[in-house]
C-alpha cells in the first residue's frame, strides 16, 4: 500500500514546535431571531464562551458535545471561516485572524457533509482542490490515485460523478481531499455521522492509520462516545459553548466517579447525552439576514 508522502506544509512548521493549537478564552456569539420581540427581533446566542485549551503536536483530541454545543463553531474558527468576538486561537504559532493565510496552509478538515461538486468525479474534485493549495497537475497525477486507493476507494469508480456514490464513499473521498494537502492539523467535524456501520469502521480505521503513520495533529468533534474514547488521547466535553473538561477518558471517568464516558458526560453537563439540542449548530450559529 502506498505511503502518504511527507507534508509540504510540514516544512513551514519548526520541528521543535510542540504546541499545535493554543486556544485562549475564545468567544463567539451570533444574533439569532427572537420571535418574542416581533418579526425582526433578535437575541444574542453565545456559541463559544471563553474556551481555552492546548493541543500538543501529534496529539489526537476528541471534543464531545450535543448538537448546538459549539463544536462546529470551534472548527470553523480554527479554519479561519469565522472571526472570533473575543480571545485568541493560534495554529503552530500562527494567529487564526492575523495570520489566516499561514493557518490555511497548515489546516484541512472533514465535515459531516462530504461537500463536493456532485456532477464532477472524485478525481476531478480532488484535482481542482489540490490546485488551491498550489499543487500542480503533475504533482497530483500519481498522488490522487494513491490516496484514493489508500482510503479504500474503488479504482473503477474514480471517474464516476459524486452524486452516484454512497455517503460512505463520499466521506472517503472527503478524507482523501483533506489528506491530499498533507495538513499538519486535521479538523474532523463528525466525520462518521450518518454512515452505515461498515463505512463508519473503515473511516475510523483510516483515522487511526493517519494518527499512527502521519505527523498530524487531529481535533475530532463527535457525538460518538466510543469513537472519542478509542481514537483520542484526550476527550473534551463541550456544553453550551463552555469546555467543561479536557483529559484522558479514564481520568474523566475517575473525576466524575463513573464507569462509562456517557455517565461522565451526564455528570459533567447534568444532561443525558441523547438529550439533543433543538438544532444542529451547523444551522444554528448564524445571524439571519433581514
Amino acid at each position, binding site marked *: 500500500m502506498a505511503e502518504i508522502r511527507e507534508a509540504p506544509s510540514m516544512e513551514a512548521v519548526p520541528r521543535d514546535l510542540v504546541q499545535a493549537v493554543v486556544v485562549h478564552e475564545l468567544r463567539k456569539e451570533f444574533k439569532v431571531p427572537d420571535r418574542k420581540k416581533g418579526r425582526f427581533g433578535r437575541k444574542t446566542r453565545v456559541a463559544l464562551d471563553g474556551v481555552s485549551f492546548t493541543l500538543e503536536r501529534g496529539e489526537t483530541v476528541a471534543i464531545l458535545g450535543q448538537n448546538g454545543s459549539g463544536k462546529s463553531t470551534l472548527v470553523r474558527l480554527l479554519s*479561519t471561516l469565522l*472571526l472570533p468576538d473575543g480571545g485568541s486561537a493560534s495554529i503552530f504559532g500562527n494567529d487564526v485572524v492575523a495570520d489566516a493565510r499561514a493557518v490555511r496552509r497548515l489546516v484541512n478538515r472533514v465535515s459531516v*457533509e462530504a461537500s463536493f461538486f456532485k456532477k*464532477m468525479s472524485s478525481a476531478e474534485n480532488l484535482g481542482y482542490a489540490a490546485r488551491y*493549495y*498550489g499543487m500542480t497537475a503533475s504533482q497530483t497525477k500519481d498522488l490522487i490515485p494513491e490516496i484514493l486507493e489508500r482510503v479504500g476507494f474503488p479504482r473503477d469508480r474514480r471517474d464516476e460523478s459524486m452524486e452516484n456514490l454512497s455517503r460512505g464513499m463520499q466521506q472517503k473521498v472527503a478524507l482523501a481531499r483533506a489528506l491530499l494537502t498533507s495538513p499538519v492539523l486535521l479538523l474532523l467535524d463528525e466525520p462518521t455521522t450518518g454512515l452505515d456501520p461498515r463505512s463508519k469502521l473503515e473511516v475510523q480505521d483510516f483515522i487511526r492509520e493517519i494518527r499512527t503513520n502521519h505527523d498530524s495533529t487531529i481535533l475530532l468533534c463527535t457525538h460518538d462516545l466510543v469513537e472519542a474514547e478509542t481514537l483520542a488521547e484526550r476527550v473534551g466535553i463541550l456544553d453550551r459553548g463552555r469546555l467543561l473538561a479536557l483529559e484522558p477518558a479514564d481520568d474523566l471517568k475517575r473525576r466524575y466517579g463513573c464507569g462509562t464516558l456517557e455517565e461522565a458526560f451526564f455528570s459533567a453537563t447534568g444532561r443525558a447525552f441523547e438529550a439533543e439540542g433543538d438544532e444542529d449548530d451547523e444551522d444554528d450559529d448564524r445571524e439571519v439576514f433581514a
Partner: protein
Amino acid sequence: MRALVSTMRAELVGAGGVVERNYYLTKRYIWWDVAWFLWTVANTLTIVFIAKGIEASGGNLDVNRTMTTLLIGAVVWAYLGILFEFLMETVAWERWEGTIEYTFMAPLSRAMHLAGQGVFAIAYGLLRATFLFCVCAFLFFDLTMPNAQFFPAFVVLLVSSVSFIGIGMMMSVLPLISPEKGTQLGFVAQGTLLVVSGVYYPVEVLPQWMQWIATISPATYALDGIREAILEGQGLTAMWDELLPLMIIGVVSIPLGLWVFSRGEQYAKKHGKLKRSG
C-alpha cells in the same frame, strides 16, 4: 526572493484550479449550456426582428443597419450575462453545492480566486458571444457588414471585460452577505448597467441623469466601440475615445471590486454566513 516566486507560482496554480474546476463543470453541464444557448438565440432573434417589424409596419429605416445595431446590443447583453453569472457563482454555486467552506479556507488569495473565475468567464463568454453573433447574423438574417472590422471589435470587448470583471466582483459579494436575495440583486445591477449604456438605442435618448451614469459605465464605451468597428469599419487607432475610458474604468474597478469583496467576506465571517446553508 525564492519565497516570493514560490508564492506567486502557488497563486497561479490556484487560479488555474479555478479555471480547471469551471472547465469540468461546463463539461458536465454541457446540455444545460446548449439549452441556455438556444434560449439566448431565441431571445436575440426577438430583439433583432423588431427592425423588420418596424419596416413591415411602414417605418422608414435602414433595416440591415438597425438589425446589426440591435444584434450587437443583444450579444453584449448576453456576454455580460455570462461574465456576471460566473462571478456571482463564485459564492452562490459553491453555497449550493456545499463547497464554499472548503474554497474559502484554502490558502489561495481572494484576488487570484476571483481572477481565475474572471479568466474562465471571459474565455467562455467570448466563445459564446462569437457563436451567438455568427448564428444570428449569418444563419438567420444573412446580414451584410461590408465595412466590418471584427478584430478591433473583439479587442474592445476584451478590454471592456476587465471593467466588467471588476464590477462583477463587486456584485458577487451580494450572495455572500445576503444568501437569500443576493443573486437576484445581481441581475438587477446587470440590467441597470445596460439600460443606461444604450444597449439598443443611442445614449442621447436617455434622460440627462441616466446619461451622466452612462459616462462611467464601461458598457457604454464597449457598445460604441463595437458598433463603430462593425458598422463604420473603424480601426483600433481611431477608437481611443472608447479604449482609454475603458482602461481607466478597468484600472479603478478591479481594485475596487477586490476591496468590496474583501469587506463582504469579513462581514460574512463575522456574522457566520460563510457556510453552505447560508
